[in-house]
C-alpha cells in the first residue's frame, strides 16, 4: 500500500466496510462511500469514530487525524443515551 493511502476497516450498522482512501480524503467522503456501498441510512445520521473519539468536523482529512496505514473505525448511528 502506498504511504499516501489509508486502509479503513469500518464497523457499520450493516456490517463491515473496508476501503482504501487517499490520506487526504475527507471524513465525509469516507462516510459517503460506506453509505453508498452498504445502503445505509443517510450519512448525516452517522458519525465516524476512532478509539472512542468522533472524527469531526467531517470536512477534515484522514491524515489530519493522524490516521495512517490500516485503521479500525466505527460508523456509529446517531441517537442518544438519556
Amino acid at each position, binding site marked *: 500500500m502506498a504511504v499516501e493511502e489509508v486502509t479503513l476497516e469500518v*464497523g457499520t*450498522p*450493516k*456490517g463491515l466496510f473496508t476501503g482504501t482512501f487517499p490520506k487526504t480524503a475527507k471524513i465525509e467522503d469516507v462516510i459517503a462511500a460506506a453509505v453508498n456501498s452498504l445502503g445505509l441510512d443517510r450519512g448525516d445520521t452517522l458519525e465516524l469514530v476512532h*478509539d472512542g473519539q468522533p472524527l469531526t468536523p467531517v470536512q477534515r482529512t484522514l491524515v489530519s487525524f493522524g490516521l495512517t496505514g490500516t485503521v479500525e473505525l466505527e460508523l*456509529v448511528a446517531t*441517537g442518544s*443515551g*438519556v
Partner: protein
Amino acid sequence: MATVTDLVFAEQFGHLRAVAKQRGWPLKQIEGPGFELVLPAHDGSQFGLNVLCDGYPGTPPAWRWCNPDNGVCDQPADIPRGGGGYFHSSGRICAPWNRLAYKQVDSNGPHGDWELSTWLTNPKTGSCTTLTAMALRMAVELKSARYQGRKG
C-alpha cells in the same frame, strides 16, 4: 415457518458476526433468539452483554450486562458507569433500543414515559435501529472518556 423475528435476526446477526470477528469480540448466538457479546473498554477491562431478541424488531432487544466468565447478570461489578447517558445509575443501558430501559418491562427501567411499540420512532433512538448499530454504540461508549470504570 420462519417468523419475522427469525428472518431479521438472522440477517442482522450476520452483520454483527462479521464486525465481531474482525474486532476479535467474543460473540455467541443463544436461544431466544439472542446472543452474548464481550466488548473491551479503554482501560483494558472487558464487559459482557446478554441480548435477547424475542419479538424483535416489533419490540427492542433486551440488553443486560453480565459477567463474561460465569454468565451471572446485573451484578454491579459487571456494569459500567460513566457519563453520556447510556451508562445509567440504574444499571440499565438507557436508550429506547433497550427493552430493559422501559419501566413497564423492568422495574429498574429508567423510563416510564416511553412506549415500547414506538421505539423505532423515538427521537432518542435516532438511526440506532440495527443490532450492529447498538453494539457499536456500546463499543464506542466503552472506548470513550465517558466510560469511568465499574459500578461496583
